[in-house]
């Protein structure tokens, strides 16, 4: 069985939440062996992360390099190519860093690549058996990946229930000397923090959230009216921002805001995992969508198959009637 590594992202001396999920995924590949953690960075934050990982991993490979102070995937890839033994299986979280790092890494390691894995059924006859999703989550697929020359696997955030290893002895192995000088044709300049918008959607108990089903900019008004009647705010999914129908600050998802409302009305939202990743705190989720196959219905509490352009205005009228009646 190939040696399994997990790449641990970290910030401020703490391992990212994905670390425990990657450990869970690694166990599904081989339950008998603890994976080896790989951590890159520099200075006290790197040391703090490695120290914190000692409780959960029997071995932690530390790669310290000034060039890796910021986790730039182009440099991290070069470092990993120098350090990982042939035939390794490496797990990375499928978010912006993993997407940047992993496909090219599989080429440089001459290993297989499976991306955005949501479930693992173990290894059989040299094949890793995994589950992926296609067509925006409307179909799942069993895939078999030949890991005889190793593999790079990206793991969907949130798909694996985190496990914490407690029996580990925690040996930190410094692999920094194997890396040497790192340079790349891409240079990190700075991070630009998102602008605050007119409405802070993270402050609302009820969100009327709209997706592609709103169809055109003029229809956004329908959602704004409902939200006003309910005392809610309007948030949205990515396609609405891409089409410039709403500001980026209204977007819920991994590349937008993380919200924790009590009630989330998903209106014309298909339910891509990147969107769902921004909905925390287990709100009561009501989904309204024309497409009965929309993945949002798999995760919603209540679902209605209907056209939001007709449903929402009638809902607004009803809320207004109720308000008027109760005011009397």
């Amino acid at each position, binding site marked *: 069985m190939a040696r399994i590594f997990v790449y641990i992202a970290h910030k401020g001396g703490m391992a990212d939440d994905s670390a425990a999920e990657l450990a869970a995924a690694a166990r599904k590949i081989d339950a008998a062996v603890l994976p080896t953690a790989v951590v890159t960075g520099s200075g006290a934050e790197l040391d703090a992360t490695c120290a914190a990982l000692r409780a959960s991993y029997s071995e932690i490979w530390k790669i310290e390099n000034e060039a890796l102070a910021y986790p730039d995937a182009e440099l991290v890839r070069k470092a990993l190519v120098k350090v990982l033994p042939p035939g390794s299986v490496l797990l990375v979280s499928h978010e912006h860093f993993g997407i940047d790092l992993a496909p090219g890494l599989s080429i440089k390691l001459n290993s297989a690549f499976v991306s955005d894995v949501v479930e693992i059924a173990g290894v059989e006859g040299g094949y890793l058996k995994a589950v992926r999703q296609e067509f925006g989550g409307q179909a799942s697929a069993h895939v078999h990946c030949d890991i005889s020359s190793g593999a790079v696997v990206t793991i969907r955030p949130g798909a694996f229930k985190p496990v914490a290893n407690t029996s580990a002895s925690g040996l930190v192995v410094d692999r920094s000397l194997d890396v040497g000088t790192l340079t790349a044709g891409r240079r990190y300049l700075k991070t630009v923090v998102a602008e605050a918008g007119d409405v802070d959607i993270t402050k609302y108990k009820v969100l009327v959230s709209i997706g592609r089903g709103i169809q055109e900019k003029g229809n956004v008004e329908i959602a704004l009216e409902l939200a006003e009647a309910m005392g809610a705010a309007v948030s949205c999914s990515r396609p609405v921002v891409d089409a410039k129908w709403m500001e980026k600050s209204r977007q819920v998802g991994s590349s937008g805001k993380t919200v924790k409302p009590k009630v989330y009305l998903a209106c014309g939202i298909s339910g891509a995992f990147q969107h769902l990743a921004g909905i925390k705190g287990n709100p009561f989720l009501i989904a309204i969508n024309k497409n009965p196959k929309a*993945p949002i219905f798999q995760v919603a509490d209540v679902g209605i198959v209907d056209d939001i352009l007709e449903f929402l205005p009638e809902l607004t009228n009803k809320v207004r009637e109720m308000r008027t009646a109760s005011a009397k």
Partner: protein
Amino acid sequence: MEILVCARRVPDTSENEIELNSAGNDIERDELVYSVNEPDNYAVEEALQITARVGGTVTVATVGGEDDEEILRREMAMGANRAVLISDDAFAGSDGRGIASILKAFVQKGKYDLILTGVQAEDGAAQVGGMLAAMLDYPFASLVTSIEVLEGRKLKISREIEGGNKEMHEIDLPCVLSIQTGINEPRYVGMRGIRAVASVPIPMFGTSELELDPNTVGESAAKVKRIDYFVPALGKGAEMLHGNREENIDKVLELVAAKGGLK
């Protein structure tokens, strides 16, 4: 600047209900509406805007079959100077690495300063751009949300990261970038525009034109194989309301009120 955009024709998931075929080895494709993969369309628009600013040409290439000519014509109607169909029976069953190998061979037949792909296609793998860059030893950036051409064969780009934040980088040419949706507003293509390019010849490249060893691509070379499709069963599944609209509205209001959402 000479720009290559790698595009793909895919079933439009926002317009279609995806159903599996009876064998479970594919989706039912007969009734599907196909279109250009959405991020690829943003990539073509970005290429057109760059060449409008600094000069150069835009080539759009797809690995596929005759049906895929439709999206090549659409992208030429948008303004792409040239379209190429990369097609060969030997390509069938290629995994991501196979597709990247085919594109690498095509890139080496030309001279491109910048190669763009969409961030991901219908399989959601987001893999070909990064693999192609690694095969060519070009720098790579994914999830790109802006491109500015600098002096000295460099670009300044932004990448989308978490929480609506952006990472800024400088990147040397030639490079490969995977383009995120929302980077621009792709121009509208009318029927008239498509008719205007209807008779433009689309050259075809196969293994012999690309001088590509057929054993390095296609199903036999694929390390990753899809075994079957199945209907996902994630989550607990919603309680579906089957009343008429008025009943459903009453139920929604009742539920929202019960959860403390109407105060």
